[in-house]
């Protein structure tokens, strides 16, 4: 033992070991900001990762380019983008339509709220490099107004939340992440509220805190309830696969398959602002 205590390497290793454990502990919880070193490392990768996506895009349109169909390709890209926006808008309109229909039945209810979104489109340029944490990296960061905890969606549904931001990129935690919890409701019956959590080790989600008398059943569509601060109301989360009674016998839980296919995500929308807005006079006239 004395031999070890006299060895300077023993003390260096011991101090490094304890220091690292403290570092792990300090970075295990959510941080408001990442360090300058982390930002520098991420920003060094962003142009390279964006270059790979750019290369893939160009390679994809290689044939079109050489057969003098470049304009057609541009038009196709623009239409694809427009289609994504319209799909997103359609999803929101469907939700609004159901809300208006429901409110029509409530005579005298005037204060209808619709939400308005301000979004930034971003490309997925990288994914988690290891098996332990699954996330994605997008090519927009604080320079584009993106901040930590903003909701990230796609035309198909909810993707996740901004985990950390550097100047030109942002790391996004997917909704399958263990630390993410989203307030949710069943779109069909509107009565069932619960919390959707990531399971961490699979691509499935679990909806918990569902009252035992709920009519929730497989095939139901789960959407955001708007009760979570970060997530706007009415965004598709997924479809119920299984419903089971929790061990306490009072609550139900449901296994939910996410609406978004995370492996195929190429573009996402970051919700910069969303705010409820009073229904415009034109809509009141319709009433």
């Amino acid at each position, binding site marked *: 033992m004395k031999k070890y205590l006299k060895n300077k*390497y023993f003390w260096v290793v011991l101090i*490094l*070991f304890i220091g*690292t*454990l403290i*570092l*792990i*502990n300090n*970075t*295990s919880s959510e941080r408001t900001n*990442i*360090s300058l*070193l*982390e930002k520098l*490392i*991420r920003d060094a*990768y962003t142009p*390279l*990762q964006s270059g*790979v996506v750019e290369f893939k895009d160009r390679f994809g349109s290689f044939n079109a380019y050489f057969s003098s169909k470049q304009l057609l390709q541009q038009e196709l890209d623009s239409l694809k983008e427009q289609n994504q926006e319209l799909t997103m808008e359609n999803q929101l309109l469907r939700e609004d339509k159901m809300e208006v229909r429901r409110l029509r039945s409530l005579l005298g209810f005037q204060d209808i709220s619709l939400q308005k979104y301000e979004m930034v489109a971003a490309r997925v*340029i*990288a*994914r*988690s*490099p*290891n*098996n*332990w*944490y699954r996330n994605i*990296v997008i090519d927009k960061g604080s320079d584009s107004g993106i901040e930590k905890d903003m909701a990230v969606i796609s035309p198909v549904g909810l993707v996740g939340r901004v*985990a*950390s931001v550097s100047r030109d990129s942002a*790391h996004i935690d997917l909704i399958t992440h*263990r630390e993410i919890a989203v307030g949710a409701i069943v779109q069909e019956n509107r009565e069932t509220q619960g919390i959707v959590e990531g*399971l*961490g*080790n*699979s691509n499935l989600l679990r909806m918990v805190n569902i009252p035992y008398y709920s009519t929730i059943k497989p095939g139901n569509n789960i959407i955001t309830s708007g009760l979570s601060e970060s997530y706007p109301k009415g965004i598709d989360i997924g479809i119920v696969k299984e419903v089971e009674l929790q061990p306490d016998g009072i609550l139900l839980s449901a296994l939910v398959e996410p609406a978004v296919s995370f*492996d195929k995500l190429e573009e996402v929308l970051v919700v910069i602002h969303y705010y409820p807005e009073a229904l415009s006079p034109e809509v009141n006239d319709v009433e």
Partner: protein
Amino acid sequence: MRYFVLGLLPFMAIFLQSTFFSTYSINDALPDLVLIFVVFFAFLNGERKGAGYGFLCGLFEDLYLGRFIGVSALSKALTGYIIGRLQVRFFNENLLVGLMIVFMGTILNSLFMFILGWSVFSVFNLDTSIISGAIYQSIYNVILAVPIYIWYYNSTQKGVLSLTGER
């Protein structure tokens, strides 16, 4: 030049893992190129250098990920140390030995990651997917290690990674 290449390897490894290999997983398991380089370095340079290189590479990976900074650093340092201890027991010019230590290194690293992440900080769920993930990752690493070991071993003998090229 040697130090520059040794620093460039984990940088390029993370770049390839986050762009190319992240879309080609085997049963949801991704390869760990950083670990492959740590294992080869430790096997050819011994336990002390192996542990140091493993720590620095792991720390770099942790800083890129931004969560639980130090988990990969410690697990790769411990893996580097153990693999480095095997240096005197095996002939390092044999490709099969190189592949065997990559398999062993991947299992060890997964074990250390799990112990640090779960036992100390309750980061991970304990289930069979972690075990199967480690096995699939070991197989993936062994496949990728074939060309990497041939290049790495030759470079340490008479290329950019040889000690004579050290500045």
